[in-house]
């Protein structure tokens, strides 16, 4: 008998979900196990169902939350919407979920939060699943060995109608990360270093699988930070093979299997990791132990440097369009080639988003802010990723640490990551943000964003300037 072909984690996930194989004439039909929806990218899809008079096929596989345009400030129980449009968008989600029988985690309710935070937290995100959402950071869920990817609103409608999507098989890309992260260096720094290395389109057409001893040593919160930003490398998804860390995280969560079902599920999940000898379409290796705290200086997440490194000269970037983009970025950011980011005066610090608003992130920021004060003139927003994280942070007294330092402690949501809800950075202001995108205007028109880890963000809050967080560690 022939040896069965060695397969990668991704190939196994793909095979398990093929409803109809691809042909010359059409892509494969892929089954979707879990569909997450939110207020911004679903209304037009619901309208399409209505227009075509099609039912939502599997309400039991559809979960809704409110996150992008909801306020993070309340007057008592009253949400303080930024305007009538955001209020109407949130109300539309409520009405649509009622009409189609979709479970909605509404604002303020236990379980509500940023879509990519609550999926794992509720135990909905499980190894082996296909998970989609009308949001590019769906790649986050890949940290559990699930094939998870962002889709547009038309495809949100496809999944609502058929629980399936048309897909051509992506290529595989191994990003191998060996070694231990040094003290003061976080998963955020690591993924920023990876994006700088592979480029903002280095993952195009590929699903990245992160492997190596560094990945194995990371917690689930850290792994989610890594997979979250796969899209910033242009990848179609990010994956990490499930292991004991994954199983321990999931056991006992609301929607995780129980009893005999749990043992069977774990046995199945153990078969998912990439087989020895399986081949990836391409590979790159990085020594994680050499990574330092990273900060971005430009207007895409690939434009980053180590905290002690100078900003590179755009003229050194070969192609004309590339050099043009780099100098436009520096002009927008009001930064000069050759200078260091350290010491630059900061106006706003944002600790939040699906990248870095989990409990470990808040703990890290609080560890630096405890007993210290936010520098005068700096506005600091701490926005937990979900109601559950908020509750646990309050239990641990983290909210007090932030408040006593002079930071604002808000209710869960996307907040300043996308600045749709009224939380924003003013034109010209410099923000150090734990979110994932430093695009022009991402945090508000004219806002200048420096992406960094929760530790680096906390250090900026205290010092009022961009600083190396390692200098504040005990």
């Amino acid at each position: 008998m022939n040896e069965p072909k060695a397969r990668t984690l991704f190939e196994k996930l793909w095979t398990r979900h093929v409803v109809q194989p691809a042909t010359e004439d059409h892509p494969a039909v892929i089954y979707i196990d879990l569909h997450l929806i939110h207020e911004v990218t679903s209304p037009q899809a619901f309208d399409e169902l209505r227009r075509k008079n099609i039912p939502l096929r599997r309400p039991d596989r559809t979960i809704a939350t409110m996150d992008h345009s909801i306020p993070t400030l309340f007057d008592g129980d009253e949400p303080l919407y930024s305007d009538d449009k955001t209020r109407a968008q949130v109300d539309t989600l409520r009405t649509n979920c009622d009409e189609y029988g979709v479970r909605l985690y509404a604002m303020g309710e236990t379980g509500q939060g940023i879509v990519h935070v609550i999926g794992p937290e509720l135990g909905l995100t499980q190894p082996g699943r296909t998970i989609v959402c009308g949001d590019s950071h769906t790649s986050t869920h890949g940290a559990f060995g699930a094939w998870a990817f962002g889709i547009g609103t038309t495809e949100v409608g496809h999944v609502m109608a058929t629980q399936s999507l048309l897909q051509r098989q992506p290529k595989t890309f191994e990003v191998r990360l060996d070694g231990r992260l040094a003290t003061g260096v976080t998963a955020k720094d690591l993924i920023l270093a990876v994006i700088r290395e592979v480029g903002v389109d280095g993952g195009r057409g590929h699903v990245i699988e992160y492997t190596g001893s560094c990945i194995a040593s990371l917690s689930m919160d850290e792994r989610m930070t890594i997979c979250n930003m796969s899209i910033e490398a242009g990848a179609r998804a990010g994956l990490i093979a499930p292991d004991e860390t994954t199983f321990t995280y999931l056991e006992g969560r609301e929607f995780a299997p129980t009893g005999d079902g749990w043992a069977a599920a774990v046995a199945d999940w153990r078969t998912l990791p990439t087989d020895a000898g399986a081949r990836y379409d391409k590979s790159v290796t990085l020594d994680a132990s050499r990574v330092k705290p990273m900060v971005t200086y430009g207007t895409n997440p690939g434009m980053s440097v180590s905290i002690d490194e100078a900003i590179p000269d755009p003229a050194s970037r070969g192609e004309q369009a590339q050099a043009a983009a780099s100098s436009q970025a520096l002009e927008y950011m009001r930064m000069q080639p050759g200078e260091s980011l350290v010491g630059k005066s900061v106006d706003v610090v944002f600790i939040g988003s699906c990248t870095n608003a989990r409990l470990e992130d808040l703990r890290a920021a609080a560890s630096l802010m405890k007993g210290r004060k936010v520098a005068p003139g700096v506005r600091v927003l701490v926005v937990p990723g979900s109601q559950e994280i908020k509750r646990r942070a309050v239990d641990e007294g983290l909210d007090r640490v932030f408040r006593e330092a002079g930071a604002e402690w808000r209710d869960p949501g996307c907040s300043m990551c996308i600045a749709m809800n009224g939380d924003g950075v003013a034109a010209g202001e410099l923000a150090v943000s734990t979110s994932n995108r430093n695009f022009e205007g991402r945090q508000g028109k004219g806002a200048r964003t420096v992406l960094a880890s929760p530790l680096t963000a906390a250090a900026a809050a205290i010092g009022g300037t961009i600083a190396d967080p390692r200098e504040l560690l005990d």
Partner: protein
Amino acid sequence: MEAFRKITSKTVVLPVDNVDTDQIIPARFLTITTKLGLGESLFADWRNDPEFVLNRPEAEGASILVAGENFGCGSSREHAPWALLDFGFRAVVSSSIADIFKNNAVKNGLVPVEVDAKAHRFLLENPGASVTVDLEACKLVLPDGGAAEFLLDGFARHCLMNGIDQLDFLLQQEEAIARFESTST
């Protein structure tokens, strides 16, 4: 969706790499619940500048946008192709176009055209050139009659050329989907 076979138009050139969907349509315009009227907000923050390409008279009537590499990266917002179409674009040409954007574009009748570096450079250096996007032949015909080939998934192309909604194909798979659901847990 409007069928697309062939269009000829002058180009508008945006010679910047990594144009992300936050530039194409900033998030503050995503609070709508329809697809309508987004063209007005296309590249909203860049359009403040009276010298921005889309504000110049040469842009009038152009339906082909040429941009730097990795066009459409970032967020999955389909508002990006909706805004481009509403403004009047029917095709976007680059040396590379981000995956999710490409996927969203074809579903709405906006043709993503990825050409080789040489043709791309020519287009970047010759704004306003009159070119033809021929979907039937999968060719971008240049002013000198030369042509650059481009690749597009056969199924997406078929749907674009005939104005077919991909959902109709998926709905026809009902039997296979039901079978899959009954055999897998």
